[in-house]
């Protein structure tokens, strides 16, 4: 197909949105999705009709790019957190005890009585709320996130070590790995594998949708290669 006959979206700069192989190679933050999409829509309007196929693909690609962009941020954060958990030695001075400052409060028994009346009214009105046990409110978002990442990293590490130790051949089927485990565990293992794959620790192969997944430990392969070399 000559370039003249190509629809406009297969030409630069929109072309990247329609070439998945290329999309995976670009640096996600080099793409300005907003500009790309608005110019795409403008061109489409000028065409006089809307190609939903192309629009759908553009939408899908944009979402992939956005995801890649957020993943990059996430990775950067993770990198920082990982660094944070490296034990560092430094001299820690003794704790400084903050002096205590008494604060006279303005709450008295009358305040208790005043609010009690309201509460008892609510009780009398049978305003019993059916309540599900709620978890305590989340603390500082960053802290929670930090803790989560830490836990996750630790679990991942343990899992990876276990995996390495238990499959000397370097590959295993997911069904074999997770067979017989509770549902929750299976999901956890699956997520860990996805995560490990993104880190390049394992490779995952699936012949077709819903078929079993083959897990290949990358380090094993590398070690295997190096052993062969020597």
């Amino acid at each position, binding site marked *: 197909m000559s370039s003249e006959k190509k629809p406009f979206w297969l030409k630069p700069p929109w072309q990247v949105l329609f070439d998945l192989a290329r999309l995976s190679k670009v640096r996600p933050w080099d793409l300005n999705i907003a500009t790309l999409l608005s110019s795409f829509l403008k061109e489409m309007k000028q065409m006089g009709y809307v190609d939903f196929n192309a629009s759908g693909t553009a939408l899908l690609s944009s979402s992939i790019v956005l995801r890649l962009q957020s993943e990059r941020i996430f990775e950067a954060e993770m990198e920082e957190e990982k660094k944070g958990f490296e034990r560092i030695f430094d001299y820690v001075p003794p704790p400084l005890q903050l002096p*205590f400052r*008494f*604060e*006279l*409060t*303005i*709450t*008295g*028994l*009358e*305040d*208790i*009585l*005043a*609010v*009690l*009346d*309201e*509460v*008892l*009214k*609510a*009780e*009398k009105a049978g*305003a*019993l*709320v*059916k*309540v*599900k*046990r*709620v978890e*305590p*409110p989340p603390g500082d978002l960053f802290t929670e996130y930090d803790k989560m990442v830490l836990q996750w990293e630790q679990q991942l590490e343990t899992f990876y070590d276990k995996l390495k130790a238990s499959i000397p051949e370097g590959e295993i089927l997911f069904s074999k790995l997770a067979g017989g485990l509770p549902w929750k565990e299976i999901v956890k293992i699956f997520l860990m594998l996805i995560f490990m794959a993104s880190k390049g620790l394992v490779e995952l192969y699936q012949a077709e949708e819903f078929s079993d997944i083959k897990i290949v430990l990358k380090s094993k392969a590398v070690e295997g290669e190096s052993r062969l070399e020597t």
Partner: protein
Amino acid sequence: MKPENPAAGQPEKTGAPAKAEKPKKVVNEREARRLIEAALYASGYPLEPKTLCSITGITSKRLVSEIARGLAESYRVKGGALEIVELEDGRFVMQLKSRYVKKIRRLTLKPLLTEGPLKTLSYIAYRQPVPQAKVVGVRGPQAYQHIARLLEMGLVEREKLGKTSILRTTKIFADYFNLSRDLRLMRRQLEKLFEEKGWKPGEEETPPMSQAGQKLPAEVKTAPQPA
């Protein structure tokens, strides 16, 4: 109801052998005095000689009371704005002399608790011992946070009874609001106070909400326990 010590809040028998929780190093009298001062300042509510014993490591309640009395005397002699008072039941409290209370009102004084937790606290105080589930049922799911805060402050305690968590107020609560430590008595006091105001709990019109700032801090400082 938790078997409360009926003698709680009553004048202590000074002759009773003092069981110090952990016999600590006996401090000299000067240091004991400072520790008592520290404790009275930090708590803001009346403390029993027993508590002062445990803070100072002194085993004799009589001795600790004597030292506290000496401290109170030194405050009196100094003639400042603060005073240390021995209550009828033998407890000691540090407080602002009442004539200074009004004058410092212009300062931004914080409430002990914001309205939500205060409501939850008042409900627990009135209905105690009360299952946590009931408190949450009446006060809504945010009551879990309130309860956590009240537990942290030591105003409320939680006890597991099978699968149920039972809530009740602590001695600190009673001391802070100058109520009896005996739960039944406390409830009667609360009811009486309601009656004095001409309110019937939960039946009549809501009494006018007390304005922040109109509450005098001295009220927080406790008066002698009713007999």
